[in-house]
């Protein structure tokens, strides 16, 4: 019986919708690229690839953490604010505003570690609220969404910090074998997260919690611990993204760094095919989702679509992408 059923499944005529669901995001991406080849001036160049890859980096980095959070059935609204905090802290440290450090390398290393670490700690705080008090993730992370940016602003008194520190800005401007460092960083994070989700106990536990938290707990999974770690990871990712943004811009503006990032990241996750209700996740999907959204943005900008109309088009594409996947699931 087992075998016959299996065969039936395989030999079934190719289901268009299931195909679309599985490869929908990829198809959308391919169509967009084709469209651009045909209509967008100067599209087929390395520089275009470069521009798009570097621009999508921060979203992907944040969205990786967000995917893990969403897989547990949660959500993290605080990522943008955490980017601001890490972006505000780092320059304060390597510019020696807190304690003067003479050695540049040391200062930069300290700045990176502390800034990312603090973001991670705030993520841990989110996890603590959610695991310890069972506060709904949206609300728990809303706290830092509101207060986090305030903290960053208080730290810097709202002032812009500008700097020219090539050692630090390497993560935003440097290249490794001709590839921008941030892209390398993004790829590494994506691979690491995909591996964790697919092949490790921790990843399986994340999915189990999103799928049925009580069952997970009764199977001996330390639900609270897993959640703590997941939100901490999301915080760390946001921290890294914050550093990348300020490095590229040679300036850190606590008021704006990471503004609206939570929605971009969530949209990327959703378009990528991860269920927002948890229990399922695909990191590669998230990468593709983020790229799709980025390319839509690029296409609209490059073709001079006015901002207001661009919003409507973007909305339509998000809905379309998610709808196609939805069809696949329903079939």
């Amino acid at each position, binding site marked *: 019986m087992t075998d016959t059923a299996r065969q039936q499944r395989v030999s079934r005529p190719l289901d268009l919708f299931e195909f679309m669901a599985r490869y929908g995001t990829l198809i959308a991406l391919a169509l967009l690229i084709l469209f651009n080849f045909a209509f*967008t*001036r*100067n*599209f087929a*160049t390395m*520089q*275009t690839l470069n*521009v798009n890859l*570097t*621009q999508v980096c921060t979203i992907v980095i944040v969205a990786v953490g967000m995917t893990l959070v969403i897989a547990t059935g949660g959500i993290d609204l605080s990522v943008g604010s955490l980017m601001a905090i890490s972006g505000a802290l780092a320059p304060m440290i390597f510019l020696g505003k807190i304690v003067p450090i003479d050695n540049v390398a040391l200062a930069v290393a300290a700045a990176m570690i502390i800034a990312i670490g603090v973001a991670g700690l705030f993520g841990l705080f989110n996890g603590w609220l959610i695991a310890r008090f069972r506060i709904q993730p949206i609300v728990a992370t809303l706290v830092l969404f509101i207060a986090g940016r305030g903290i960053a*602003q208080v730290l810097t008194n*709202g*002032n*812009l910090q*500008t700097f020219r520190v090539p050692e630090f800005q390497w993560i935003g401007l440097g290249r490794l074998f001709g590839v921008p460092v941030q892209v390398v960083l993004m790829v590494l994070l994506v691979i690491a997260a995909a591996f964790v989700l697919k092949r490790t106990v921790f990843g399986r536990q994340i999915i189990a919690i999103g799928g049925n938290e009580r069952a997970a707990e009764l199977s001996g999974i330390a639900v609270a611990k897993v959640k703590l770690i997941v939100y901490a990871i999301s915080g760390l990712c946001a921290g890294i993204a914050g550093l990348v*943004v300020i490095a*590229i*811009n*040679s*300036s850190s*503006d606590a*008021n*704006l*760094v990471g*503004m609206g990032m939570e929605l971009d990241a969530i949209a990327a996750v959703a378009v990528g095919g991860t269920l927002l209700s948890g229990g399922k996740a695909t990191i590669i999907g998230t990468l593709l989702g983020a790229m799709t959204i980025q390319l839509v*943005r*690029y296409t609209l*900008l*490059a*073709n*001079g679509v*006015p*901002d*207001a109309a661009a919003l409507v088009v973007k909305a339509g594409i998000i809905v379309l992408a998610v709808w196609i996947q939805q069809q696949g699931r329903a079939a």
Partner: protein
Amino acid sequence: AAPPLKKKDTYKVGFAQTESNNPWRLAQTASMQEEAKKRGWQLVYTDAASSAAKQVADVNSMIAQGVDLIFLAPREEKPLIPAIKAAKNAGIPVILLDRNVDASLAKAGEDYVTFIGSNFIEEGQRVADWLVKNANGKTTIIELEGTTGSSPANDRKKGFDDVIAKHPEFKIVASQTGDFARDKGRQVAETLLQAHPDANVIYAHNDEMAMGAISAIEAAGKVPGKDILVLSIDGGKEAVQAVVDGKIAAVVECNPRFGPKAFDTAVAYANGEKIPEKIINPDQFYDASNAKDLLSTAY
């Protein structure tokens, strides 16, 4: 006439700021707070977080607290009218800072005391005029707009575009919003430069986006100031330094240091002096010819 202000040694005044998410606003707030401290006045400060509606609520809470006078930096021309009317009804004079309100709905000297500020349309015009004179064949323009729907973005666009429209040799090939932010400005500039490789002028509605555009130009392997002229408005220190360095071609100042003039005006009003309907801040214009000398005076 606008409500009178009693003569006193010190006052309790309100300052309804629209937002604090950019250096310009911060400088303005700081200037107001410093001035209040210097004079020993009590300042009730509110921040409307970019919402005109909240700003009205803020003004109302100032009225409720019984301040003597309100400095209002209206977020928008129309939605703040009810706040001005409410203050008038409560007998509290209002002085507008840096943005005006719709003249058909509220009148200076009648509903509010006066407007102190700059003229956004004129700022755009000044940039365009400079470009027309100094273009040297650089005529293909990318415009980085401010936040969609905000009045400085609308006005700086109008002032600039109207002048450019009179000169057919110039062409604005793309005009997109960069949200007044450096990062967004950079990303938009990167994209637009990619789609319009022939562009050789970037006009940004504020310094932050101009700085972002410079990064974008450099990332595209071009030289700002040489291959591409960057024009900007605001004239903060970083931007003026960029003019000195040759990266920005020209920048119109929009000085945020309103404190002294605003408070002087209030005192003059209490003294019964006649206040003009508009007090326009004289704004600097920086380009290669004067930037070095004026760098120290830039805010």
